[in-house]
Structures are given as structure tokens and as C-alpha cells.
């Protein structure tokens, strides 16, 4: 894909940006809590930045940043007090919209005729505010919106939680070595999908946040923060910081004709090569902010009178995932990695009209052996049997 | 009811249909009509392959004995050719072929046909093309059967 210049957010007349200082950020957290939102945001825990409940600015990873590389993540101290001076940890917001495990229903069998009645689990959708959603994560939420709410069937829990979620985006002021949002046209500037957006401005003179509203709800919250109006220079400074972040991105993924490239090379030797490294550990699918596969477990209690159905996250890297009578369809790591990558980057486009990858790089960082999907695509592209645009999977099969 | 002559019959069967009429005439010269009762054997494994058949009516089962049981491994019916081992040295049959029901067939004398093939390579090639297609089809069918298709 030709790298498109990110569209800049053009403020409307009622959309006057404001400046919030660190105390103002604290007021925002307090205000959200006052309005009944559970505020979820980044926190340092177990050596990583994770998303959890935050009550005050001090709960945020103030003064922390991280080093990321394929298969590597390490928190390090900053030499300043930046609040959002890091990028992404292993958590994606999907866990708060699409819970990793939940009960769907509970059935009770009557003593007499063995018939059973089913009680559906009530839909739980607490009001929640996401604080610190990055541009790539906004894109990931938009992708999951299409998956869970865009088709004939809507996931009622996702839809209810989504409706009750307030989003405060944060523009990235630095890039991790694993980031490639610009290639996927999702960042680093947050363009849509947020109620409020913050850009942290930190220099010798000041430590403030440019506050911009993306929705009516966001505007009404902003109005209650008694923040100072921003001047055009502040907006320019915020844009400049994000532009520097874009320039600092080192990783790229060429998405030009990627669907045909991958489907035209389903028997490329690179799949064998990557399979020799892949452990099929499922990490990439668990940290991925768009992976949506789930399974169900049917259980009974010890008396056998009560049965339940639970839905849990699943991964296409497990052997069970493709099991049909007689065995799994995808027995080898080669087939499973190929399934994941071709789905993420190619068939997702057919299914949902968008790529399944937002360029967050989590799968690269959290792969225990450091497999890098951008590298895998590059390897296939550079030695493709068939270049994109001229292919059908059949041709690739013709030599068999 | 019209009685068909052997050349007429050969002209209707896909296997021989597009052969030159003179070649069909020649083949007819090596052929005769035969009839089998249900249960009679048309071929016996290990015996000399002295002829081959065009099945006109009824069907024939290729059989194999395995573990003291007799299995039918393929059936050959109307319009199909039975037997190709007459073309390949040492010219002996590999399976038994038994009439499942009353069978009418045309039997071709293998020696007569082979000698003509040697003398007239154009005729020989035409016949070989047809038989190699037949052998390939049977081989393919056997391979598919090995895949246990309906598992």
C-alpha cells in the first residue's frame, strides 16, 4: 500500500481544542468516575503496562517507557515525568468489550421427564471509560465493531458494552520499534472513534495535554473541565509531536496487492520456514487487538442436573480449533500460521472490507521466538512464485 | 428386431467408434459373439490372456480372493472393455472375471489383433491409444479406491 499521509483532525467551530494540565487530567478521571464510569487505563503491573482500573493520575505509568523488539519487552525509566510516554503493552482493549470468558446460559433438568429449561445469562455492560486508547487501538475497535455488530448476527454482549464505553484517545508521542501503524493507515494520529483525544506536550516550560473532542458526549465532558482554550500554536505543536512519531516509525508492511500475494502463494516454502520457528503458543492471537475467535464449553455440575455453556477466547493456533471428525484439518504449524496470517491480512478484507491488522506490533513483541509478520510478508513478496494481481490459488497448485 | 453385425456394433461403442471403418472391419474379423451364464468365469487369474471382451449386456465382476474371502473389486458393464493383459507380456490375467448375471459379449482373439498391430503400426498406435486411456482410467479408479473415499 502506498503510504498515505494521515488525515489531520480538522476541528469544527464548536470543537475548540483546550489545554489541560496534569491536574486537569486528574479532574477528567474524577469526572468520569463521578458520572458512573469505571475508568480503565494503563498501569504498571508485573513489569508491563496493562489496562486496569485507574483512580488518579498517579496510577498511570508516569515516567515509564518501554523497549520493544521481536520477542522482547522491557520497562525502563524515563528521564521525565511523561504520563503517556510509552506505547503499547500486552493488553488490548478487546478484553473489556469481548470478555475472555463468560457464561452464555445455564440449563436445569427437571427430575421427571428429563426436559430442561435454559436461563440466559443477563447481559452485563457496565459504563466504562477507556483512557489512553492509541490510534491503532481505535482502528482495532472499529474492526471488531464490524465483526461483532456488522453482520446478520450481533454479539449482544459486545454491542451492549460498546454502547456503554466512553473513549479517551491518546496520540502517540513516540513509536516502539515494533510499531507499523502508518503502513496500515491507522496512526499515529487518532482521527476518529474517540469521545476525547489527548496529545501530551512536555518540555522545559510546560506539561500539558491538548484536549480535543470527537463526539457530543466528549464535548460536554470537556466543557466541565474548566480547561484553558488552546491557541493555534498549541495545536500545531501537538501535530508536530505526532508527525515526529510518524517519522520515527521504523517498521513497514507493504500491503500492496497483499490479498492476491498471499492467496497466490499458499504453497510458498516460507510457510515451512516460519513453521520451523513457530511454537503455536497462541500468544499472537491473544495479544492481537482484532483476533475474535472464540469457542464454547458445555459443562455439568456434579449432580448432572445443571448444565452451563461458557464462551472463551480461542486461537487458530490450537490443534482443536479445526477439529472435525477424523482429526484436525490444520495439523501442522505451517497450516496454522498460514491460516492466521492469510486471515489477518487477506481473507479479512473479503470478510469485513478491511484488513485485520492495525499495525500495533504486539504479535511481534510477544512472540516468544520473535516471529515478525512484516518480515514474513516481505520474504514471501520477494520470492513469490506468482506476483500479485496475476494469481489464483489454483495456479499455485497447478504443479502438484 | 434387427440383428446387428459386429462391425455395426463396433461403430456404436465409444471405445471403437472413431476408428477408421477398415480397422473396425479388421477387428470384426478377429471377433465373435459369446454368451455366459450367471456365475461363469470370463477370465481366470494366472491363465493365458488369449482374448479380450466388449461387454454388450449384463455385467461382470473382477474378483480377488483375500483371507479366504472372495471380494469383488470392480464391475464392468455394457459398452465397456474387459481385459488389457493380452497387450502386455507375459499375457496372463491378473484377476478372475465372473458374470454377475447372464452376459453377452464380443470376444476378440488377442493373437489375431496383436499380429495386425505389429504389421500395421498406424492401427497398432490407434488401438494402443485407446487401451492406454482405459488402463489409465482403471489405475486412477484403483488409486481413488485406495483413498477410502467415504471415510
Amino acid at each position, binding site marked *: 500500500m502506498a503510504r498515505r499521509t494521515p488525515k489531520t483532525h480538522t476541528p469544527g467551530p464548536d470543537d475548540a481544542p483546550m489545554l489541560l494540565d496534569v491536574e486537569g487530567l486528574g479532574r477528567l478521571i474524577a469526572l468520569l468516575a463521578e458520572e458512573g464510569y469505571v475508568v480503565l487505563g494503563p498501569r504498571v503491573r508485573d513489569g508491563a503496562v496493562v489496562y486496569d482500573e485507574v483512580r488518579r493520575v498517579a496510577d498511570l505509568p508516569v515516567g515509564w517507557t518501554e523497549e520493544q523488539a521481536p520477542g522482547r519487552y522491557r520497562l525502563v525509566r524515563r528521564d521525565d515525568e511523561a504520563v503517556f510516554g510509552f506505547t503499547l503493552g500486552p493488553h488490548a482493549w478487546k478484553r473489556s468489550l469481548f470478555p475472555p470468558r463468560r457464561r452464555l446460559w445455564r440449563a436445569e433438568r427437571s427430575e421427571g421427564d428429563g426436559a430442561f429449561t435454559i436461563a440466559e445469562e443477563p447481559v452485563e455492560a457496565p459504563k466504562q471509560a477507556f483512557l489512553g486508547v492509541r490510534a491503532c487501538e481505535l482502528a482495532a475497535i472499529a474492526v471488531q465493531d464490524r465483526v461483532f455488530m456488522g453482520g446478520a448476527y450481533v454479539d449482544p454482549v459486545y454491542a451492549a458494552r460498546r454502547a456503554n464505553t466512553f473513549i479517551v484517545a491518546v496520540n502517540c508521542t513516540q513509536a516502539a520499534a515494533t510499531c507499523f501503524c502508518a503502513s496500515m493507515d491507522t496512526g499515529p494520529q487518532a482521527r476518529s472513534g474517540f469521545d476525547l483525544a489527548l496529545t501530551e506536550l512536555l518540555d522545559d516550560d510546560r506539561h500539558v495535554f491538548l484536549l480535543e473532542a470527537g463526539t457530543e458526549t466528549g464535548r460536554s465532558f470537556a466543557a466541565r473541565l474548566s480547561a484553558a482554550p488552546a491557541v493555534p500554536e498549541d495545536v500545531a505543536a501537538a501535530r508536530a509531536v505526532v508527525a515526529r512519531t510518524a517519522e520515527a516509525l521504523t517498521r513497514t508492511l507493504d500491503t500492496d496487492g497483499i490479498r492476491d500475494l498471499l492467496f497466490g502463494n499458499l504453497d510458498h516454502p516460507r510457510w515451512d520456514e516460519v513453521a520451523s520457528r513457530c511454537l503455536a503458543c497462541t500468544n499472537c492471537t491473544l495479544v492481537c487487538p482484532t483476533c475474535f475467535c472464540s469457542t464454547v464449553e458445555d459443562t455439568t455440575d456434579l449432580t448432572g442436573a445443571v448444565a452451563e455453556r461458557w464462551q472463551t477466547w480461542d486461537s487458530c493456533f490450537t490443534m482443536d480449533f479445526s477439529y*472435525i471428525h477424523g482429526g484436525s484439518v490444520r495439523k501442522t504449524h505451517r497450516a496454522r500460521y498460514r491460516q492466521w496470517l492469510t486471515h489477518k491480512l487477506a481473507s479479512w478484507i473479503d470478510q469485513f472490507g478491511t484488513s485485520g491488522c492495525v499495525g500495533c506490533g504486539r504479535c511481534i513483541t510477544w512472540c516468544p521466538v520473535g516471529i515478525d509478520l512484516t518480515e514474513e510478508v516481505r520474504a514471501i513478496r520477494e520470492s513469490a512464485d506468482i506476483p500479485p494481481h496475476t494469481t489464483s490459488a489454483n495456479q499455485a497448485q497447478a504443479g502438484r | 428386431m434387427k440383428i446387428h453385425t459386429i462391425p455395426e456394433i463396433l461403430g456404436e461403442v465409444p471405445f471403437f467408434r472413431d476408428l477408421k471403418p477398415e480397422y473396425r472391419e479388421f477387428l470384426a474379423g478377429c471377433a465373435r459373439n459369446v454368451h455366459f451364464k450367471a456365475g461363469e468365469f470370463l477370465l481366470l487369474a494366472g491363465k493365458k490372456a488369449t482374448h479380450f471382451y466388449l461387454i454388450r449386456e449384463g455385467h461382470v465382476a473382477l474378483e480377488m480372493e483375500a483371507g479366504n474371502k472372495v471380494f469383488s473389486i470392480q464391475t464392468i458393464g455394457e459398452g465397456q472393455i474387459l481385459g488389457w493383459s493380452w497387450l502386455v507380456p507375459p499375457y496372463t490375467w491378473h484377476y478372475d472375471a465372473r458374470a454377475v448375471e447372464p452376459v453377452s459379449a464380443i470376444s476378440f482373439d488377442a493373437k489375431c489383433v496383436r499380429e495386425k498391430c505389429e504389421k500395421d503400426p498406424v492401427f497398432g498406435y490407434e488401438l494402443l491409444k485407446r487401451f492406454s486411456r482405459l488402463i489409465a482410467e482403471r489405475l486412477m479408479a484403483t488409486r481413488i479406491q485406495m483413498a477410502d473415499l467415504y471415510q
Partner: protein
Amino acid sequence: MQPPTPLQTAAHPMTPVSGRVLRRRWETDDTFTLDIEVAGGRPFPFAPGQFNMLYLFGVGEVPISISGDPDDPSKLTHTTREVGVVTRAMRRLRPGDTLGVRGPFGSAWPVSEAEGRDVVVIAGGIGLAPLRPVVYHLMRHRLRYNRIVILYGARSPEDILYAKELGQWSARLDVEVLVTVDRAARRWRGNVGVITRLIPRAPFDPENVVAMVCGPEIMMSFTVLELHRRGVASERIHVSMERNMKCAIGLCGHCQYGPHFICKDGPVFRFDAVEDLFRVREF
């Protein structure tokens, strides 16, 4: 024609409705048929080719194609083979027992599109079960179709599904039924050989036929090769695909097949929609 959508009784599409077993009968050594009445005797309309998710209390849920008569929505009929935990438990169901039903799901065989044409139904093994509703439909509306040919292959004579009905169909003068088995003992008087051998001489016009093929992928794969050789274009061939299914509503991701979700885009596909992926191993 849009195939029927699931009975909506619950807020969540993952919640089954209850059904009661009316009858269970054995078809072969390991294959049985269940007739089920949906709670309250509610009619259960479906299109040939669609499937249900059948739930056994506490044991689990499996996708099974509907194999009954689409013109009789008063009961649901499913034929299945014991191949896993759920189906093994299902064989113990007795009349009066309760199970859960979600459905019907998925796409349908093109019975309307085939009107005025020859129809060839090609089934292998238990693949006859999802096609039986098609045969019922064709028989009931016989005049809408030109020639009707049913080709069926099974491993052995003992594995033939719906043997009695196959006999009844083949007794009709307006339907051609050809059955073949892979191997047989001597008492079998029918065809022996793979199903593909029935195709070259089956009485249909390759230019004007609709082929509906169901069986294991390997069987469908060789069948399609033979249909192509006969001159039947991919656009006139339809196949029914199988992959793992958990939700049946396109949300759980298990049944993906390239761009398709078998549960909602399939299980019945026009062959040209899946042709490119069909022989890719482990896909």
C-alpha cells in the same frame, strides 16, 4: 430464494430451543436417524442443505445437516454417524428424550435454479443425508425438472445409507439411480468401483445440468474432476463443505475457509466460489 433463518426464541442466538425425540432408527452399523419435534410442536421450516446445531444436555453441541422432507416441517429429521463424544451420546437417546436445537443455519442447494434442467445428485457415504431433502423435493416436484440422476457411492453394501429408499427411487421410471460400492462380497449384485466411474455414462446433458455433490472432500474433489472431464462447468456444480463449527452464526471463527465462513456463506457453495482453495492441503 433466501433459505429460512433460525427460529428466534431467545435473546442470544447461542441459546437452543428444546426438542423431543420422536423416533430413533439405525441406518447402518454406525449411522442412525433421529426424528425430533420442536417444543410445542412448532413447525420448523428449512431449505434442503441447511443444518442445525443439536445440543445434548451437558455433553455438547454438534452441527448436523437436516435430512428430512422440506415439505413436512412438522418434524425435524437428522441422520448422523457416531464419530465423537456428542454423537456417541446421541445414539442412546430414546423417544421422549429432550435435546436442544438451534437452526436452521446456512445456505441451500439450488433446487429452484435447477428447474427446467437435468439434475444430477452425487453423494458419497453419509453425504447422502444432506442431499436427501433435495431428492424429496425433486420427487415431489418431478415435473419441474428434466432428467433426474442420483449417483451414490458407499464403501461396502453394508454401508449404504437409506437402502430401502434408494430402492424405491430406482424403481421409478422417471429417475435414474446408480449405486456403487468400493468392494463387496460375492452376493452383492450391483456395481463395484469408485463413484467417479458412474459419471461418464450417467444420462444427463453436461451443458444443461445442475450437479449437487456431497461427501468427504476427497470424494467431492475426484467427482468434480470427472464432472469437468464430462464438460460440466464449475458454475453448474455445487458442493457442501464441512469445517469445525461452534457458533453457526459467523462469530466464532472456527469454520473459516479462506474468505468464507462455512456456517453462513455455506455449507453449500457453487463450486467456482471454492475452487481455488479446494485442493490446497490443510486449508
